[in-house]
């Protein structure tokens, strides 16, 4: 059904500080989009503007086809937002907290109760529903937060650093839950985090957001190409040579590898080549080595993950 979130030319200033600088972004229906950036990059500000919670200096924001600055109420009834470090009324039980939000969304009380119990079961809090929230653990609170977001049956979910402070197991379960729900119900998810691995695990598409600017945007594999102009691929090859004197020496092999198109650099280190190239040449490489009479003990393609992209960027910054 087309785009759920459309942002163009979005700018927000705090005094002279440019928090969000001419941001353009669009997210399709059913997509899980990761907004990746360090602290203070303007992720939360962007999210606030998506919900119409803060004023936009210039540019336009459309969520579900509705202008967020003009009619924030309509947007907020379609978007579930889990704020960073969400809080609950501690002296109310989990169910009561959930019911309150349901009532604020104008869900009639009977139906609210039914769907609240449903959702609590989905997020695995049904046993703890009558306990006061102050006795909840961090993970339970976060799951209650997710329940809170889901109860209004949103079309879009916006999660601001939802995994902050969870243990690895908790993070894994939480992410699985989000992916499952999103896939099942076709909910669009905008997921902001500064954790590369979590984003890498769940997101279809990623935007890297630094100092108010979207540096790159796309699938993780495409991102590498956008950010690294050359030598995206690094291949590590281990060779064995049983019969001595039969093969050309390893230095010879190095030269031959260098002759392959698009290879930029080859380093030899104790029967092990490290080859940097622009394209994937593992095919040709293995053929070459075998033809030369060497044994191929291993060949690993080192693809760039977000980690490298991230570090690469910050190295450039410095």
């Amino acid at each position: 059904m087309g785009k759920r979130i459309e942002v163009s030319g979005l700018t927000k200033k705090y005094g002279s500080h440019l928090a969000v600088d001419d941001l353009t972004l669009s997210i399709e229906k059913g997509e899980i989009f990761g907004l990746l950036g360090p602290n203070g990059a303007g992720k939360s500000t962007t999210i606030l503007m998506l919900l119409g919670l803060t004023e936009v200096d210039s540019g336009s924001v459309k969520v579900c086809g509705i202008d967020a600055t003009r009619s924030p109420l309509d947007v907020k009834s379609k978007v579930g937002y889990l704020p960073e470090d969400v809080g609950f009324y501690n002296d109310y039980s989990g169910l009561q907290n959930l019911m309150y939000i349901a009532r604020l969304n104008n869900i009639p009380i009977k139906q609210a109760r039914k769907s609240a119990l449903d959702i609590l079961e989905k997020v695995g809090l049904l046993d703890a529903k009558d306990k006061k929230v102050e006795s909840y653990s961090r993970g339970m609170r976060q799951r209650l937060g997710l329940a809170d977001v889901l109860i209004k049956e949103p079309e879009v979910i916006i999660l601001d650093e939802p995994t902050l402070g969870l243990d690895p197991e908790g993070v894994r379960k939480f992410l699985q839950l989000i992916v499952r729900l999103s896939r099942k119900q076709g909910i669009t998810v905008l997921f902001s985090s500064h954790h590369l691995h979590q984003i890498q695990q769940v997101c279809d598409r990623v935007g890297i957001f630094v100092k108010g600017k979207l540096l790159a945007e796309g699938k993780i594999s495409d991102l590498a190409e956008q950010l690294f102009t050359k030598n995206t691929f690094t291949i590590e090859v281990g060779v064995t040579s049983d019969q001595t004197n039969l093969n050309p020496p390893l230095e010879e092999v190095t030269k031959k590898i260098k002759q392959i198109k698009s290879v930029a650099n080859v380093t030899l280190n104790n029967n092990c080549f490290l080859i940097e190239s622009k394209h994937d040449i593992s095919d040709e490489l293995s053929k070459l080595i075998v033809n030369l009479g060497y044994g191929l003990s291993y060949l690993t393609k080192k693809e760039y993950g977000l980690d490298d992209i991230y570090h690469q960027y910050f190295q450039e910054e410095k």
Partner: protein
Amino acid sequence: MNTKVFKINIANFAKIKFLELINFIDFFKRRTPDNASNFSLASFKVMVQKEITDHIRNWRFIILFAIIALACMGTLFSTLADTAKTFATNNSENTFFFLNLFTKSDGTLPSFFVFVGFLGPLFGISLGFDAISSEQNKGTLSRVMAQPIPRDYIINAKFLAGIIVISVMLFTLSFLVIGAGLVALGIPPTAEEFIRIVIYTILSIVYVSFWLNLSILFSVRFKQPATSALSGLAVWLFFTIFYPLIVNIIIKGSEPSKFASESKIFIYQKLKFYLVQIMPSELFNEITSALLVPSVRSLSPLTMEQMHGAIPSSLPIGQSLLLVWPQVTGLLALTLLCFLFSYVIFMKREIRSRG
């Protein structure tokens, strides 16, 4: 040349009018019945309900209510014994026994209205001082803001819930006093007495809600609930202790000699009167005395000519109300001003989680 300019002005003017009209329509869109209005009102009701529940369950409220109720009961019993005696000895028509229950005391305890005037501000401050800041600190504010409700509902709900709680409390106390008097004296209050008591109660609600609003203003302004509670108490202390001291110093300094001209003395008396008029507590005291003591004929200084020929009798209710009308207006204005400021600050603020 001139006409041209004039035409352009007219055109601009029409444009502005037109724009204003658009805004105006937009402004009321929220309230048209077909789209979101029922929707929002229902959620507003839910919010007010929650706030009231929170207040009533709160230990702070329970303790303060207990203190106020006990204090009032104490004075009630001491005055009841006293009033019963006067009732036995004096049978005339115009003694306003029920009003005496609120104003007279036998000296062991201050009277009912003194207690309300003294503890009411504390009560108002305690209901409001963490209204917004605690929600912000708990991180619930941004959660509620993410729901489809207009932002002002949050502060309006806090305000309305506070006023409802205060009204219920004050009406309970007033009616309790009337009821106890009824049981003890065996005669019903006259219609005038009843109306006076009801009006007094309504105006004391306004007075307490002034303090409620002031503390809500502080809670919007300050992040720490302790800061806002202390600033609320500081304002209250300033007006009950320090401001009268300052006024005394000024008045002492400007006191005219015994032989000064009449107009000088008149100005001095006026100064004395107006200096205390800024104090909300003084405004309330004047309202109380005019409403509950019908024989009070003037609150400001009078000249001899004005006093001349006056019959020392009590005023009818309408006249008493007329007498305190400026004070009532002042108190209402102060209350609304506090609300306005907190509203504006709150609406303009950017809400981040726990920020």
